[in-house]
């Protein structure tokens, strides 16, 4: 069975602070992993993806994620959060067919 877990439903950070959003997966083979962001009233936008190779992946908007096979994790990070980063973040895993999404983490950025 394949699944994606995002343990944090809500996260609040101060503008300028660092951010880490957690994602754990369950899959029997090498996963294809993705992070998407959904701003209020907007569609989903791809932030970054991991297929193979370098386990530290750079994405758009200053985001990065690190694939750790030993921990079955693919956490998303950003060194300094901006107010415009407030959104819903989804981790996703492609198994045999379609993408399986986690339930999302809602990020609130405070001044």
């Amino acid at each position: 069975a394949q699944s994606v877990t995002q343990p944090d439903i809500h996260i609040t950070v101060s503008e300028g602070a660092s951010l880490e959003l957690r994602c754990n997966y369950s899959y029997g083979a090498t996963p294809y992993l993705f992070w998407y962001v959904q701003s209020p009233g907007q569609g989903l936008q791809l932030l970054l993806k991991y297929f193979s190779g370098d386990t530290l992946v750079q994405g758009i908007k200053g985001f990065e994620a690190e694939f750790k096979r030993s921990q079955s994790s693919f956490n998303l990070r950003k060194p300094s959060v901006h107010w415009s980063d407030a959104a819903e973040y989804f981790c996703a895993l492609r198994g045999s067919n379609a993408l399986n999404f986690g339930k999302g983490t809602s990020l609130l950025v405070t001044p």
Partner: protein
Amino acid sequence: GAGVSQSPSNKVTEKGKDVELRCDPISGHTALYWYRQSLGQGLEFLIYFQGNSAPDKSGLPSDRFSAERTGGSVSTLTIQRTQQEDSAVYLCASSPHRGPLHFGNGTRLTVT
């Protein structure tokens, strides 16, 4: 280049009526997906089309839901005899084979 286009953007229908939701994928993308997003919920997979292969319908919640993809391009999701619990945002996405998904802005369905 155009992205994934969905229509209508909003649909209000009465309980018991049938609705059709349309998705125009990105040209050249072989895969097309339908997801449903309810308030406060994640994305629920509905159906997946890949090229000429038989679609993966494993996510369809009931036999009131069906989808087709004509000519390997445009897709229509049909919900028959709509119920209030069908109210949600229906998202379509397309991708190259096993590539990242590109999402449309969704159709917000409200069943009254």
